[in-house]
């Protein structure tokens, strides 16, 4: 992210992640993978990318706080657009836009989840569609070790679907004041991370 950093520092970064664990696997295990095939690789890639996960969580919190209709809109629109946009990303490839944009979904959706304003249902639906487009494209276009990009996109979409459904339902069911506050705090943390990330990208 820091353009001026010497390559050496990146080597150090790479080294920092060198570590070894002896694990079993059968012959089908391949590079850069969980060893469970492209579907799981795509899912794991998503689950390991907080810049993709956190906006989904924030959207789910926002939708859940606003009620059933909003939660339903998020659960229906996000995975559908995520899937389509993921395939598009797979076909077109990375767009090469600045990394600073990565922080936008974090800041916008995190702040919305924290502030908990009332919006019409179509507002939540539009946010879900926008996030689906951005998030799906981002993960779909990223080069990965998975051999089968289609299945990887499907795996990531499944995780996005499960995540948004579970979080939205949990927040929706939270009638207790403290649980709702906790959900909003998570939104606030997401937005705070986004602001810091933007700072790093602009530095």
């Amino acid at each position: 992210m820091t353009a001026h950093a010497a390559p050496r520092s990146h080597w150090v970064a790479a080294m920092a992640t060198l570590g070894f664990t002896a694990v079993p696997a059968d012959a089908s295990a391949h590079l850069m993978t969980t060893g469970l095939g492209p579907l799981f690789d795509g899912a794991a890639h998503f689950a390991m990318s907080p810049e993709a996960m956190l906006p989904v969580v924030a959207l789910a919190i926002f939708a859940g706080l606003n009620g059933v209709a909003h939660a339903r809109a998020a659960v229906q629109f996000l995975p559908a657009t995520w899937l389509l946009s993921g395939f598009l990303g797979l076909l077109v490839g990375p767009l090469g836009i600045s990394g600073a944009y990565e922080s936008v979904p974090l800041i916008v959706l995190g702040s919305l989840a924290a502030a908990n304003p009332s919006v019409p249902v179509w507002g939540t639906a539009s946010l879900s569609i926008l996030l689906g487009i951005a998030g799906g494209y981002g993960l779909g276009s990223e080069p990965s070790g998975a051999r089968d990009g289609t299945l990887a996109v499907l795996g990531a979409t499944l995780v996005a679907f499960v995540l948004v459904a579970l979080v939205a339902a949990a927040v929706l069911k939270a009638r207790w004041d403290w649980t709702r506050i906790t959900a909003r705090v998570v939104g606030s943390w997401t937005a705070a991370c986004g602001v810091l990330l933007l700072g790093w990208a602009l530095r």
Partner: protein
Amino acid sequence: MVSLVSHAGAHEIRPAYLQIDQSSPGRYTVTWRTPTLSGMRLPVALRFSEPVRNVTEPAERNLPDSIVETRIIETPDVGLSGKRIEFVGLQATVKPSQPWIEFSANPGPFAAARVYFASGVHHILMGLDHLLFVLGLLFIVRSRWMLFKTITAFTVAHSITLAVATLGEVEIPALPLNAMIALSIMFLGPEIVRVWRGQTSFTIRHPWIVAFAFGLLHGFGFASGLTALGLPQGDIPFALLMFNLGVEAGQLAFVGLVLLLFAALKSIEVRLPRGMELLPAYLVGGLGAYWTIDRVVAMLGGLA
């Protein structure tokens, strides 16, 4: 035996990756991926301790973000136990850590337990057909008690056949077995349709009997996964137990996740659109049918 360096989705962090697969006694395929940064290669090389030698020289392949090096190595004696792989170049960069790995000659019981447990989890998650069968059962059971009975029956049944097959009492050829497993999934499709239409059948009244019967089949499938992994001489029951526990852990995690998701979708009031209510049934049945045909063709091809 595989040793791998974990991968992270993060951007600046580009881990290296090492995988070692045994191809025959004393022979191993080594895959070593090193990340590249703006065309520059991570200055780390592999060095094997004596008497390991290269059968084929390292062949390199360039990927967008890394270089992958493949080679075959050979050891004259018992294998890689007690051998060491050094990472030349890593010593200079990371002082306090350990720039090599060693294959322990005698892995402790805990390490072995972990290996077999993990491969059990691995096997159930890899086995999309097993998961699909369980998913089909979840669509059929109507109450918690029924769910408990059904999952327990499936577990008991496949544990029995997994044990019997691993201990070498019974042997079933793989191809017909796989076709039968696929058939068991296809069988559930029409049953889910019946549930949705409010009809009833033997399966819907007693799903646990069906789960038990087909569970016997699926257990043979798990056994083939375990024997492919290789079993320790002398301590087969222990490996079997850990593998079985791993399978159950993976299966329970899957069932838990699916049930949570069902509950979540119910509370959000998300339903399948009109005219597509039978989609799950067609998905389970269709995939079952596809695999059945695919595997029967493979079986006939194998005979011819």
